[in-house]
C-alpha cells in the first residue's frame, strides 16, 4: 500500500467543504422562478377527509396553487409501492392497502399529507396553509401492535383484514419442535425492540423542475439511491419515462436508511411542478421529519431457546409481531423477514430454527429500514437470549457463547444464510482481553463496597451485509437486483474520474474509493475524483445501504479498473515495444518488469486519446465500466463488551468501559471505519438508553421534537475502545465485509446485558431510562 492506498487512514477529501460550510445540499439550491411547497398534514391518527376548502387560502398573498389528494389521484400519479413481495405461510401474497401520495379520502397517521400549498415563499405557503380548512371525521385509531390484531380493533385497510399484512414463517417447525421435546433446558424471553426515529442531521428536501418544452423533469432530492428513485418514479408513479427524468442527490446530510425510500413529498413536488409550470421546492422541518421519515425497529417478540445437557443450543423458536405503521414503505416488508429472521442463528451452531413473523398495520408513521434494518432486532434478541440462558443455566455468559460458536466455515444456517468465513473466538478473545473480563469480578466487588451496582454485558453480533446477490434476493421476492455499477474515466492528461452508483451521504466515498485507485496505479488521490448522485452522469446504480458500498460498489470499481488497466498495459507495451505480460504498474508508471524502461501513466492516457500510435485495431480512449453482482452476502461479526455502573438511587447508567472487536474483513481507511463504528455504537447505545418514538393509545405522537425524543449527546456516550480481528471475505476480491451498521447492530444488547447484570434482574426493556431502571431495581 502507498501512503494513500488501501489501509491508509487518509484524511477525508470531502471534509474541507463540509467543515467550511461549502457543502451543497438540496436546500442550498435555488432555481429561477422557484416556488415553495408547504404540506397540510393530518392532525388525526385516523380520519375521513370530508372536504377541503382552499378558497380563502387561494386569495392570500403569493399563493400559486393549493393541490389536494383527490387531484393527484385524478391525475393518475401511482400509489406508493412496496418493492419486496412476501408470501404468508398459507401461500397468500401480503395484503397491502393503497398509499396515495396525498390522502384523498382517509388519513391513517398523524402527519399524513392531505394537500399542499404552493406559494412564492416558504412563509407565505405556511401562512396560506393555515387558511385551508380541512373537514375531518375522526375514526377510532390503534397504535399498539397487540391492540391492532385484537378482534374489534379499528381497521386500517379493507385489503388487510385484522390489520394483518402477512404471517410469514421460516425454518423447520417439525425439527424445532422435536429439539424442544428433547431439551434439557428451555430459556424463554419476551422482548420489545423499541421504535426509533432516524433523525438524519439534514431533513428531507426536494426540488422539482419541469421543462415543458422538453417534457423533462429534474428532481434534486435527499436520496441514498437516486437511480432507484428514478426507476420507481418512472416505472410505478407515472411521473415521466426514465429518459425524461433526471434525479440528482447532491450532498446529503445523513440517511441511516431513511433516505432510501421515495416519499410522497418528492412525488408531489414533481407533479406540482408540471401543474404550476414552475420549480417547486420543499424542505422538511424537524417536526415533519419526526412525523414522516420512515421509523425503524418496533418489534414485539417471544422467543424460546432449547439446550441439551451440555449447554449446546438445540433449537430456537421465535414469534415476532412487526409494527409497519399505516402503510407499507418501499422495503419495509423485507426488514422483519429476510433481513431479520435469516440472522437468527447469530454466531451459533443452532441445528433447528423456526420463526414466525406477523406484520401489522397501525395508525403510526410507516416503519422501514433503519441502520441495521432487521439485523439489530435479530442480534438483540439472540444476545439477550444468550445472556438470559447463561443466568438461568448458571454458566459464564462468555463461556456459554464459546460453547456454541460456529467454528468451521462455510456454515449453512437453518435460516437461508451461508456464512462464508469468520473467527468468532478471536473477536471474543480480543474484547475480553481489552476489557479485562477476568478482572471484572474483583471490580464488581470493589464497586459494591463503594455502594455502586456494576455490571458487564457481552454481545456477539453477526450481520449479513454487502447487499446482495441479485439472483438470491430475486428468489426471495425482491423487486430489484442488488448489484452495483462503476465507470473509470481516464482523462487525456491522466487524471481520473470514477463514476459510481453508490451514494455517499456521510460515508466518505470520495476518499475511500480514491484510495483503491491510488493503490492500483500509485497516483495521488488528488488526481482522482469520485462522481456520484446524478442519473445523467452515472449510468445506473443501486445506491448505498446495507453496508454495501465497499463490498459491492468498490468491487465494481475494481472490475472497471482492471479493464482499464488491461487496455492501458497494451498501450504501454506497444509504446515501450515490450510484451503486455511484462508490464507492471508501479508508482504511477507502467514499467517493463526488471528493466528501467517505463512510461508514466499520464503519457499512456495521452496516447490513448491522441491515438497516433495505438496497437492495431485498438479503439481510442481510456474509459471502462463494469457491473458487479456479489455471489453471497458478507458477514461482518464481532464482540462488544460493555462495563457500566448503575446509580441505585436514580437508576442512571454510567459507562465504565466499552470495547468493540470487529471483523470487517479488509479495511480501506481505518480512520473512516473507526468513525463508522463510533456512529453505529452511538445509535445502538441511543436505542438501549435513550431513544423511543412513542405514540399514545389514540395514535398521537408523544415524541415529535428533541424536547421529548432523547437523541444521544456526546456526554451520554463512553469513550470507545476499538480493535479489529480480521478474516478476509472470500466472496469479493478485496476481502471486504462492510462496517456501516455493525455498531448499531451489536451495541444495544451489550448495554442491556450489562445493566441487567448490574441490577441483578433480567427483565428490562429498551430504552433503559433511569426511571425504568429504578423501577426495575425496586420492583417486588
Amino acid at each position, binding site marked *: 500500500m502507498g501512503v494513500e492506498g488501501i489501509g491508509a487512514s487518509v484524511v477525508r477529501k470531502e471534509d474541507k467543504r463540509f467543515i467550511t460550510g461549502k457543502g451543497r445540499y438540496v436546500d442550498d439550491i435555488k432555481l429561477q422562478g422557484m416556488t415553495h411547497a408547504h404540506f397540510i398534514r393530518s392532525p388525526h391518527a385516523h380520519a375521513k377527509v370530508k372536504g377541503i376548502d382552499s378558497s380563502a387560502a387561494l386569495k392570500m398573498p403569493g399563493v400559486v396553487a393549493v393541490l389536494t389528494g383527490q387531484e393527484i389521484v385524478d391525475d393518475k400519479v401511482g400509489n406508493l409501492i412496496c418493492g419486496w413481495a412476501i408470501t404468508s405461510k398459507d401461500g397468500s401474497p401480503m395484503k397491502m392497502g393503497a398509499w396515495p401520495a396525498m390522502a384523498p379520502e382517509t388519513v391513517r397517521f398523524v402527519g399524513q399529507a392531505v394537500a399542499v400549498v404552493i406559494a412564492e415563499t416558504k*412563509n407565505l405557503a*405556511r*401562512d396560506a396553509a393555515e387558511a385551508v380548512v380541512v373537514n375531518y371525521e375522526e375514526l377510532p385509531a390503534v397504535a399498539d401492535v397487540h391492540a391492532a390484531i385484537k378482534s374489534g380493533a379499528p381497521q386500517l385497510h379493507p385489503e388487510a383484514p385484522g390489520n394483518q399484512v402477512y404471517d410469514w414463517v421460516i425454518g423447520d417447525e417439525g425439527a424445532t419442535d422435536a429439539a424442544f421435546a428433547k431439551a434439557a433446558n428451555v430459556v424463554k424471553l419476551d422482548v420489545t425492540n423499541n421504535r426509533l426515529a432516524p433523525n438524519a442531521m439534514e431533513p428531507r428536501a426536494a426540488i422539482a423542475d419541469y421543462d415543458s418544452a422538453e417534457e423533462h423533469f429534474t428532481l434534486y432530492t435527499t436520496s441514498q439511491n437516486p437511480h432507484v428513485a428514478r426507476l420507481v418514479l418512472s416505472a410505478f408513479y407515472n411521473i415521466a419515462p426514465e429518459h425524461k427524468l433526471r434525479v440528482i442527490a447532491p450532498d446529503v446530510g445523513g440517511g441511516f436508511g431513511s433516505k432510501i425510500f421515495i416519499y410522497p413529498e418528492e412525488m408531489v413536488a414533481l407533479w406540482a411542478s408540471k401543474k404550476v409550470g414552475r420549480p417547486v421546492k420543499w424542505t422538511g422541518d424537524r*417536526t415533519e421529519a419526526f412525523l414522516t421519515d420512515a421509523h425503524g425497529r418496533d418489534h414485539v417478540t417471544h422467543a424460546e431457546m432449547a439446550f441439551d445437557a451440555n449447554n449446546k443450543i438445540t433449537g430456537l423458536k421465535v414469534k415476532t409481531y412487526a409494527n409497519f405503521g399505516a402503510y407499507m414503505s418501499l422495503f419495509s416488508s423485507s426488514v422483519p423477514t429476510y433481513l431479520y429472521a435469516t440472522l437468527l442463528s447469530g454466531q451459533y451452531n443452532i441445528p433447528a430454527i423456526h420463526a414466525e413473523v406477523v406484520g401489522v398495520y397501525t395508525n403510526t408513521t410507516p416503519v422501514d429500514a433503519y441502520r441495521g434494518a432487521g439485523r439489530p432486532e435479530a442480534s438483540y434478541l439472540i444476545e439477550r437470549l444468550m445472556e438470559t440462558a447463561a443466568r438461568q443455566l448458571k454458566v459464564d455468559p462468555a463461556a456459554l457463547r464459546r460453547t456454541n460458536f460456529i467454528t468451521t466455515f462455510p456454515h449453512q444456517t437453518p435460516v437461508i444464510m451461508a456464512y462464508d468465513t469468520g473467527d468468532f473466538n478471536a473477536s471474543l478473545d480480543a474484547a475480553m482481553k481489552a476489557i479485562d473480563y477476568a478482572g471484572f469480578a474483583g471490580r464488581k466487588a470493589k464497586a459494591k463496597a463503594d455502594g455502586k451496582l456494576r455490571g458487564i454485558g457481552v454481545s456477539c453480533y453477526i450481520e449479513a451485509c454487502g447487499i446482495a446477490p441479485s439472483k438470491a434476493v430475486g428468489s426471495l421476492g425482491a423487486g430489484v437486483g442488488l448489484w452495483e455499477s462503476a465507470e473509470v474515466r481516464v482523462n487525456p492528461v491522466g487524471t481520473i474520474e470514477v463514476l459510481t452508483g453508490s451514494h455517499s451521504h456521510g460515508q466518505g466515498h470520495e476518499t475511500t474509493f480514491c484510495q483503491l485507485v491510488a493503490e492500483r496505479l500509485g497516483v495521488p488521490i488528488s488526481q482522482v475524483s469520485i462522481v456520484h448522485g446524478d442519473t445523467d452522469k452515472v449510468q445506473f446504480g443501486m445506491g448505498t445501504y446495507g453496508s454495501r458500498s465497499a463490498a459491492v460498489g468498490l468491487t465494481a470499481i475494481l472490475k472497471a479498473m482492471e479493464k482499464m488497466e488491461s487496455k492501458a498495459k497494451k498501450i504501454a507495451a506497444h509504446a515501450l515495444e515490450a510484451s503486455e505480460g511484462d508490464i507492471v504498474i508501479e508508482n504511477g508508471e507502467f514499467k517493463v518488469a526488471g528493466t528501467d524502461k517505463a512510461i508514466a501513466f499520464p503519457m499512456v492516457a495521452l496516447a490513448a486519446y491522441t491515438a497516433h500510435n495505438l496497437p492495431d485495431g485498438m479503439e481510442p480512449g481510456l474509459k471502462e465500466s463494469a457491473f458487479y453482482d456479489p455471489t453471497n452476502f458478507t458477514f461482518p461479526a464481532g464482540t462488544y463488551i460493555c462495563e457500566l455502573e448503575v446509580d441505585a*438511587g*436514580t*437508576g*442512571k447508567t454510567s459507562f465504565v468501559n466499552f470495547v468493540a472487536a470487529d471483523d470487517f474483513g479488509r479495511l480501506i481507511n481505518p480512520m473512516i471505519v473507526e468513525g463508522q463504528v463510533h456512529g453505529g455504537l452511538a445509535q445502538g447505545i441511543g436505542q438501549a*438508553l*435513550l431513544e*423511543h418514538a*412513542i405514540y399514545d393509545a389514540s395514535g398521537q405522537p*408523544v*415524541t415529535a421534537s*428533541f*424536547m*421529548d*425524543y*432523547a*437523541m444521544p*449527546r456526546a456526554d*451520554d456516550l463512553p469513550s470507545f475502545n476499538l480493535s479489529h480481528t480480521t478474516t478476509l471475505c472470500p466472496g469479493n476480491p478485496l476481502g471486504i465485509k462492510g462496517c456501516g451498521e455493525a455498531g448499531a447492530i451489536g451495541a444495544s444488547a451489550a448495554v442491556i446485558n450489562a445493566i441487567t447484570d448490574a441490577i441483578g434482574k433480567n427483565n428490562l426493556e429498551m430504552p433503559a*431510562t*433511569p*426511571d425504568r431502571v*429504578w*423501577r426495575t431495581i425496586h420492583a417486588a
Partner: protein
Amino acid sequence: MYQTVYHRASSVDEAVALFSKSSEAKFLAGGQTLLPVMKQRLASPTDVIDLGKIKELQGVELSGDVLTIKAGTTYFDIMQNADVKKATPAIAYLTSVLGDPAVRYRGTIGGSIANNDPAADFPAALLALGATVKTNKRSITADDFFQGLFTTALEDGELITAVSFPVPAKAGYEKMRHPASRFALTGVFVAQTKSGEVRVAATGASQSGVMRVPAIETALKANWSPSAIDSVSISASNLLADIHGTAEYRANLIKVMAQRAVAAAR
C-alpha cells in the same frame, strides 16, 4: 414564524415604553424559549423588544451579604463570575448544568424566571435562597413571585431588572437531567441561611411548578445531613408524570437529589 416588528431597546425605560405602545409585545431576553415557540408559530407577538443591548440589565454585584444578578446576565456569565462563585457556588454550579453550552451563552436569569417553566433550574435557586425579584416597578419575594406553571406575579409590561440573593451559610443544588431537553427532570436546591433557617425547593417535579419541600426542610433543620432525609416520605400525588419519569420516580428524585445537594452544599 409570523411577521413581527423587532425593536432593540437601549434602556429599561425605553423597553417599557415600547411595550406599552404595542398591542401584543413580548420582551426578548436570551430567546431560548420565545424564539423556538415563535418559530413553531405557537406565539405571534406583534412586537418583539430585544433587551440584549440594555447595559443596566447586565452584570453581577456582591454587596455585603447580598448577591445581585442583573436580569439580562447570561448563564455563562453567571457561571464564570468570581463573585457568584465566592458568595454562592451552588448558583455557579446550577448554571453549569443548565441546558447546553449554546443555551448557556444566550439564556438569561431574567428570561428563565419570567417564563417560569416548571422544569427550569433557576426558580429552585430563587425559592430556596429566599431571593427577591426586582422589577421596573417593585420588589417581589420569590415566595410571591412564582405562582404556578408558567405563571408569575409579573404584571403586563412589567420588566424584571435584577434578582437579589441573600448569601447563605450553605447551599447546594443537584439535578437529574431530563434526557432529551436537559431541563430538570427533578432538581432540588437546599439552603441554610446565615440565621439558621433551612429552605428547600424542588423544580421539575410538581404539577404546580417550583415548590418548597417542607418535610425535607423540617428534617434538615433538625439535622443538616443527607441521612436526615432517609426517613422523609414524599408523596407522589400532584407530581408530574411523563414518558421520562413517573410521579413515583420524581418523588424518589426529590429525596435523592436533596440528599446529594446537602452532601454537595458549601
